[in-house]
């Protein structure tokens, strides 16, 4: 009987532990993001709305006058980042020249499209992420930055009932370094 009771205690504890850590339950302390968040696009210092889109793999960003070119035998992209800063209401812009990471094929209703991919630093919550973005003239879209799964996997869980759970708050020194870096090596937040 004694042994049975001990066994019962053990199984019950194991069961509750298993329940608490079951893979389809959130555990305490996990970071949660809304389907809309604000982020700072560091090269232009603009705070923008970003949409977290689990349906997309690669993130994408609105850019104008996108051109690819060759320099020293490497492929580069020249483009204009032109974003409205939600804090000041002003449009911030800067001409960018970045090494081309790759070209993606995008399947849409209108057939296939090829888009250049570059690595850009953005501040989400209290971390700077150097993430790959496909460049695209998203003028007619509501949100200039779309985060795909590739970026979201660095973040945490997604709650589609919520928006703006994490205000961008990266330390200024880090912002300057990240924004000033000319295509420094891609990394995971810092």
């Amino acid at each position, binding site marked *: 009987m004694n042994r049975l009771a001990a066994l019962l205690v053990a199984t019950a504890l194991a069961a509750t532990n298993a*329940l608490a850590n079951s*893979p389809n*339950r*959130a555990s305490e302390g996990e970071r949660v993001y809304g*389907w809309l968040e604000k982020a700072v696009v560091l090269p232009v210092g603009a705070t923008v709305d970003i949409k977290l889109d689990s*349906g997309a793999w690669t993130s994408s960003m609105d850019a104008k006058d996108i051109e690819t070119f060759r320099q020293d035998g490497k492929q580069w992209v020249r483009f204009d980042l032109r974003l409205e800063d939600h804090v000041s209401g002003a449009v911030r812009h800067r001409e960018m020249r970045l090494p081309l990471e790759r070209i993606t094929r995008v399947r849409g209703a209108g057939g296939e499209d090829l888009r250049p991919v570059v690595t850009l630093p953005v501040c989400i919550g209290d971390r700077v992420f150097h993430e790959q973005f496909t460049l695209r003239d998203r003028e007619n879209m509501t949100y200039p930055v779309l985060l795909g799964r590739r970026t979201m996997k660095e973040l945490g869980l*997604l709650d589609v009932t919520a928006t703006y759970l994490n205000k961008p708050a990266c330390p200024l020194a880090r912002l300057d370094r990240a924004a000033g870096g000319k295509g420094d090596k891609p990394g995971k937040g810092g």
Partner: protein
Amino acid sequence: MPAVLPPRESFQTMTTLLRATLLPLLLALSAPALAKAKEEPRVFGWLEKAIVMPVGATVKMKLDSGAKTSSMDARDITPFKRNGKRWVRFVLHLEDKVSGEDVYRELEMPVKRYVRLRGAGGEDRRPVVVLPICIGDRVYREEFTLRNRDNMLYPVLIGRTTLKHMGLLDVTRTYLNDPTCPVPELRPAGKR
């Protein structure tokens, strides 16, 4: 109940006591843990399996936080009027991932509303119907836009209006919740 066992108690009394003290203690210990586990929201991967109840087919679906409304692959989508109301006739033709067989059924349903979809190819109006779908252990009655998703990888796309009824999303994982709802008897595939 005594906190310390009296010296000359029999073994039997001791076990009875053990049972009497340990079991409530055990329950008291596990109750908060169980209650807490219940409070934690359910987490879904970006891909899950679901049973489309009207055809009893288990399909793969993509959980897409970028889309507002859910959508489902349907063929021969034909709007019509019934008693002055807007209805739609369509064919659900899906591959059941359990049996590997194609299942097929023509349905007629009232149209909840029409949605305007902005796409690369201009604007499009699509009918919205309410369809029962089993995700995890629950049947959800959700709004779906009907659309020929033939060239898409996943026949069902779950948007935010449905995701709101479900829980949190973990885009690093897939297939965390297998559908376990009992499926009603269906006529054999291809028969109407």
